[in-house]
């Protein structure tokens, strides 16, 4: 369970250019829930994700996951709970390293990066199997540098990498924004599969209204730093794309 407790993020507090990115936001996300977040640019949804990930710290309030308060920890110490898929596939992978080396690092997200050779036969076999499941034919290219792949392939791999090690929450910030429709579909279906089969909580930010309706079992909308809509699965299912678009006007 992820609990956002009365969280605020104010930039340049007290000055003329004060920005209230988030204002006293509270939300509880159940374990295994697939939460979709929509809102205009600057509404605060990315700020929320960054507060959970730890790239920024809150002005007030706290974030806790599975009973552990994490909002004061630096980003690199939150890895046991939080995993992130970035909007730009380039952010989530080290381009000059091979596919298998990227996976090795992802598999050690919460663990020690020690002085043993972990990139061994057994691990390579595991990566081959995981990658083969994508059906992209990458299982025979695991020694190829990951930067040589297409954006769609990289993003699908990032998603797999995100759950190579144990995690409670998988954050996705517009993961398909840079992808063609076909790759976007592969990535979204993979996310759904991960959520269903591994029971990992997903928080997805998207600007695609179609994706917002099609995927996930709860939908919230941000506006001016506050949550203005919160729909459960049933309410979300009966929502139409026209109604959803009206929220933005």
């Amino acid at each position, binding site marked *: 369970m992820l609990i956002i407790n009365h969280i605020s993020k104010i930039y340049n507090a007290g000055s003329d250019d004060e920005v209230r990115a988030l204002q006293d936001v509270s939300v509880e996300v159940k374990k295994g829930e697939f939460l979709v977040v929509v809102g205009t640019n600057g509404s605060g949804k990315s700020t929320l994700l960054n507060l959970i990930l730890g790239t920024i710290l809150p002005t007030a309030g706290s974030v806790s996951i599975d009973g552990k308060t994490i909002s004061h920890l630096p980003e690199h110490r939150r890895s046991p709970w939080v995993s*992130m898929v970035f909007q730009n596939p380039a952010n989530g992978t080290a381009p000059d390293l091979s596919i298998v080396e990227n996976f090795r690092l992802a598999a050690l*997200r919460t*663990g020690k*990066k*020690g002085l043993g*050779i972990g990139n061994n036969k057994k691990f390579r076999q595991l990566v081959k199997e995981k990658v083969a499941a994508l059906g992209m034919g990458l299982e025979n290219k695991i020694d190829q*540098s990951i930067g040589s792949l297409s954006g769609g392939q990289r993003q699908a791999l990032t998603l797999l990498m995100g759950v190579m090690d144990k995690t409670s929450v998988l954050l996705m910030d517009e993961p398909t924004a840079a992808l063609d429709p076909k790759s976007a579909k592969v990535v979204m279906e993979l996310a759904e599969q991960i959520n269903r089969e591994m029971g990992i909580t997903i928080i997805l930010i998207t600007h695609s209204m179609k994706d917002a309706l099609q995927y996930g079992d709860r939908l919230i909308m941000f506006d001016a730093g506050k949550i203005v809509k919160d729909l459960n699965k049933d309410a979300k299912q009966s929502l139409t794309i026209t109604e959803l678009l009206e929220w933005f006007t």
Partner: protein
Amino acid sequence: MIQFYLTALQMALCLAPMAMGIFITMKVFNIPDITTDGSYTLGAAITAIMLTGGLPVSLALPACMLSGALAGTCTGIIHTKLKIDALLSGILVMTALYSINLIILGRSNIPLINTASIFIKSDWLGSELNGQLLTALTFVGIILTLLIYLLRTDFGIAMRASGNNPVMTKALGVNNDSIRITGLAVSNSLTGLSGFLVAQYQGFTDINMGIGIVITGLGSVLVADAIKQWFNVKKIGRQIMLVVIGCTVFQAVLAFTLSIGIDPNLLKLITATFVLLIVALPRLTAFTKHK
């Protein structure tokens, strides 16, 4: 004549650890580190003072590497914790080291005559130089093996990824700051080792011996980079081996310029020009292609 080039090879092998250190900071971590000039002389200064003091080589070696690591750690801490530009951090530590080296040496030059030496002095291999070459080759071999191993470990993968994409490694639980400090420490301990080797090989330590040595290291890495591009070398282990080859090519070029009778005072100018050429040539050819 052959003797002349073998001497260049010997020098290249002595400088190879430093070049590999520069490869780590420049290519693995993307940090331009020029602490090198200081940590190289530091290694040589400690070697001189310990060996003339009658201490064994087996103590001088770890002392040089540790002090180099310490210098690198200083640069790393200034760079990561105080958020000062890597280049400036290196310059600061390098400048400070000049005084420290002078304090260690006590004067500007210490000859190493009739002191203990890592190099085999006897000529059982045919000549004294052969023995020296063998010793240096063994050292480079050991360092090469250790580095290749290190870069293939989980820690090594984290190091390389951290230089390649720090945003990603941070999200993957890597402390980019401490891994960078470690990288700078490893790199400068190798530089200290080069100082240790060169001091004994040339038979003296001079306070100014480190000036511009970073260019030699950079040049070696750039030559290695050019070879890497030509032959499309991907494997990290092979890339490090290329650095040793790059270092040798670099020294050979310098030896050649000296052999055709160029004034040794112009050596630094030639070194700088050679490095400029290596960097500029690919760009110039790219320019003509676009035309």
